[in-house]
């Protein structure tokens, strides 16, 4: 249950070593690089190194060669045995492979293009089957012109009205809408006949004049040519395959190495160069320090300085570290936002409360086991992040199924195990043990409220600890979830709770003044009090170890605003101060009520689950034998899917709105290992 400790690393060395250093950083798989420092406005002038794109071009060339010879590249392949280091080395190798395959690839491309063209002509020729004239002679006639093409079927009838015009029309293959045809017209009449046919929707098909013989002969000749081309294509493919066999593995390794080198070039935008030396910094997980040092030692001639981060270093990236049980719930935390580097990782709290609330709201032994099995199956066969969560909530649902005595909606089988039938529990509210969940509804609703109150108080305590740790006095002491808020809320709950539940009146004047009015007054006057505390040396916020501002707390915000000159702190009139304070107090009290009431949904879902299953039991009762079983199965599937899904969303809502809003401080930067930045 923590945010993993990270170490700040400064690396500097000779510019000659930059590629190798960055490549090793990538290889480590655990280096988060920092952006270059902003040196504008200082005397220090450093240039940011940028890539010229030479390796990018080589990657493209490698891909093109691989595609040409039919090699499938893999950028994950081990490439330690590739000894090329400079761009010239790579270029020479790629030139040599290119020389082997270029002529073959060009010929293959040409043949492929010719084959496509011949295939199209062949298919056109098939439409003119039965043409008993030499096509090349027909197309080369000097005094007549022949046009091949197709005409809409409807236009053929119209041609009979043009008997007086000089053309001969020969229909060939007839399709649904068109007829493939040929018309021949004297050269002198060419224009008018073409116009007539065009106006009738004739679409010309060009046939090449090298086609010898009639349509069948020309088609056969084309087929022979295509066979010969295919044979040559196959021979080329064989030769290319030989090249692929001999060079494929090496080409893949070269590609992988080029990718690593290129990615290191991309990283150069984060490196500053000064006085023939490079400088950059980043973070590594502290546990990786030894391995990273070994990697850097391989480079040689570089200086690596490590500095442990302090809790106040807010610019450090965040890595969540949790055990196997809680780890899947990191997904929910990341969905909301990573915690600040100096905050706490809420994953364990989310995991525990999520499982607890889910089980309470959807407790059923049978359905819980089904959900758990579904989760296990999904975990095994998919990589869905939700799958392990489904397993865990399924388990929780099963446990609470025993608590409620519910198995696939049947409330009778485990009735005697049900919590509402234990004398110490039910005797608080009822004289006789309730027969079913509905009779115990008051018990469940009060239980839901108690759970809500406990969770609110717990989150307030967490908030106080976190805020004080971050020296955010406004939130830790005067906030609605700070010490004042905690005292106020706990006192109100205790006062009303004792009065209503136990009949004990503890809210005497002293109680009210000290535990209710005083916290309210402190919340009301928080701004002047914070100002007073600052003037007496109780400064809020802190300076980060790396010199950055930690913008926590009201004062820090005001200070930051002052420093940037964006705007001066607003001076308030007394009237405005009172109005804002009253509204603030009203909102605080209202939030306590609404947040507490919000937990009533836990009880609501317990009842709705029982209600939904009761409906299906009644429907099943209307059928006999198999029909009844089918209804029960369908009902259980529906309730598991429908209610299980809704409860999942509702619990997430409680987590994000009711719990996170009280204690969670986001704003962390995710740890991104530079190896993950490699682009394809």
């Amino acid at each position, binding site marked *: 249950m923590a945010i993993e400790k990270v170490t700040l690393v400064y690396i500097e060395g000779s510019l000659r070593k930059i590629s190798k250093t960055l490549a090793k950083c990538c290889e480590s798989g655990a280096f988060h690089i920092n952006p270059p420092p902003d040196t504008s406005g200082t005397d220090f002038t450093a240039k940011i190194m940028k890539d010229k794109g030479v390796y990018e071009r080589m990657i493209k060339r490698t891909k093109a060669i691989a595609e040409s010879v039919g090699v499938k590249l893999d950028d994950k392949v081990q490439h330690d045995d590739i000894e090329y280091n400079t761009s010239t080395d790579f270029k020479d190798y790629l030139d040599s492979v290119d020389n082997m395959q270029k002529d073959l690839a060009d010929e293959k491309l040409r043949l492929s293009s010719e084959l496509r063209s011949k295939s199209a002509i062949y298919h056109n020729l098939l439409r003119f089957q039965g043409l008993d004239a030499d096509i090349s002679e027909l197309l080369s006639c000097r005094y007549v012109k022949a046009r091949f093409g197709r005409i*809409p*079927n409807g236009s053929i009838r*119209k041609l009979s*009205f043009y008997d007086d015009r000089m053309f001969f029309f020969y229909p060939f293959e007839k399709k649904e809408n*068109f007829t493939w045809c040929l018309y021949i017209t004297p050269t002198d009449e060419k224009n008018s006949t073409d116009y007539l046919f*065009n106006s*009738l929707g004739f679409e010309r098909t060009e046939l090449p004049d090298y086609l010898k013989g009639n349509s069948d002969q020309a088609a056969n000749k084309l087929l022979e040519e295509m066979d010969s081309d295919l044979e040559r294509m196959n021979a080329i493919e064989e030769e290319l395959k030989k090249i692929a066999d001999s060079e494929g593995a090496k080409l893949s390794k070269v590609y992988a190495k080029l990718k690593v080198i290129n990615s290191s070039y991309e990283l150069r935008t984060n490196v500053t160069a000064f006085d023939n030396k490079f400088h950059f910094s980043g973070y590594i997980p502290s546990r990786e320090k030894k391995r990273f040092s070994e990697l850097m030692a391989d480079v040689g001639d570089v200086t690596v300085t490590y500095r442990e981060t302090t809790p106040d270093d807010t610019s450090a990236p965040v890595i969540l570290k949790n055990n196997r049980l809680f780890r899947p719930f990191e997904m929910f935390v990341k969905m909301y936002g990573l915690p600040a580097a100096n905050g706490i990782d809420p994953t364990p709290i989310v995991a525990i409360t999520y499982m607890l609330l889910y089980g309470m709201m959807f407790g059923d032994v049978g359905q819980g086991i089904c959900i758990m099995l579904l989760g296990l199956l999904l975990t095994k066969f998919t990589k869905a992040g939700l799958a392990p969560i489904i397993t865990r909530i399924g388990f929780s649902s099963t446990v609470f199924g025993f608590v409620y005595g519910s198995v696939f909606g049947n409330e009778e089988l485990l009735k005697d195990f049900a919590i509402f039938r234990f004398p110490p529990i039910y005797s608080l509210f009822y004289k006789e043990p309730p027969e079913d969940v509905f009779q115990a509804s008051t018990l469940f609703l009060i239980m839901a409220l108690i759970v809500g109150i406990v969770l609110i108080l717990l989150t307030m305590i967490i908030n106080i600890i976190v805020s004080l740790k971050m020296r955010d006095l406004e939130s830790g002491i005067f906030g609605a979830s700070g010490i004042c808020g905690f005292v106020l809320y706990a006192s109100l709950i205790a006062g009303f709770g004792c009065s209503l539940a136990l009949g004990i009146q503890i809210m005497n004047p002293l109680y009210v003044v000290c535990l209710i009015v005083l916290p309210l007054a402190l919340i009301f006057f928080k701004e002047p009090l914070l100002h007073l505390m600052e003037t007496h040396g109780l400064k809020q916020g802190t300076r980060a170890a790396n010199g950055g501002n930690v913008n926590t707390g009201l004062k820090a915000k005001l200070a930051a605003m002052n420093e940037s000159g964006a705007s001066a702190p607003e001076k308030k009139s007394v009237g405005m101060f009172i109005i804002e304070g009253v509204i603030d107090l009203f909102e605080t009290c209202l939030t306590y009520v609404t947040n507490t009431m919000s937990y009533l949904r836990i009880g609501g879902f317990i009842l709705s689950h029982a209600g939904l299953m009761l409906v299906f039991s009644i429907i099943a009762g209307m059928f006999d034998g198999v029909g009844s079983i089918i209804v029960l199965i369908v009902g259980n599937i529906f309730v598991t899917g429908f209610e299980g899904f809704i409860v999942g969303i509702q619990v997430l809502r409680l987590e994000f709105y009711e719990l996170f809003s009280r204690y969670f401080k986001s704003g962390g930067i995710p740890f991104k290992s530079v190896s993950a930045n490699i682009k394809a």
Partner: protein
Amino acid sequence: MANNAVTAKARAVYGKFLTKDDYISLLHKGSISAAVAYLKTKPLYEAIFADTAEMTIHREQAEQLINQNVFDNYLRLCRYAAGDKKGIMSFQVKQTECEQLAKAVIAVSAGSQEGYLRSFPEYMSEHLCFDPLRLAAAKKLPDIADAIKGTMYSRPLEPLLNDPSPDINRIVTMINVCYIKWAFEQTDKTEKGRTRELLKEFILHKTDADNLLMCYRMKKTFSADSAGISELLIPYHRRLRVKDIQDALKMPDPVSALKELFVKVRAAAPEDLAIPEVGVNIADYRYFRHRLAVSTGETESLYSLMMLLRAESVNLCRIIEGLRYGLPPEETEKYLII
């Protein structure tokens, strides 16, 4: 259920109509090929032009495909109509029949039969009650009378077509009368109640427009007298009684009075006298668009859609014609029903 489904489908087809921006884009295409390539990207036209090589397409072929598209779309939609409503399909066929007959008469009288022959809709042949090829082959008006022998047009048109000095306007009017008579009979046969009234209203709506345009053209172009014009009017009306027109024609400034009559048919009176039908067509278009929007019956929605589809095909044919003759886009735009 089927009732609502057909109306919904008709509205869905209308949703695929070209927008004003589409028309502007089409007007600015440099050629018919470019316009057809553009239409190929539009859902209502992609199917009809899919198999066409736009680079070599001819104007008449493009126009014929556009008109065929109207017919195909309408036919497709009518298949969904309830069994007793399938007769609505015949309105489209009959209107086309009358149009072709009128075109053939005008072509013969103008001596331009070849143009008609190339452009007549061959795809409609099997639906028409006469052989359009015989109509296309007609050299004289009596040949047309022979071509339509045995059809509903034969009896009323034969004396006019065989007249040694035929009056083309009267023949065209008579063709329109034939259509209205047929349409009324058809409506009485297949519809009842409010739908019957509405369908007749639709038919007469068009009659008002035709009558008004006829006398406007006759008065402005040929300075015809009141009696001569009255003979050419279709003896049916919705809002525009023949007597109203006659009274208007008798006034000292009959053209201004006729312009007032445009208001009666709820159309904008034309400023450009060369294109008086545009205002009327736009009023028609809006009327049927409104009817389609508020329609609750399939007959109403199908008839409205038919009129709207025809208006769109008219627009496209005008654009194609404008591109063919290199007219400036703004000039063609004046003729569009938008």
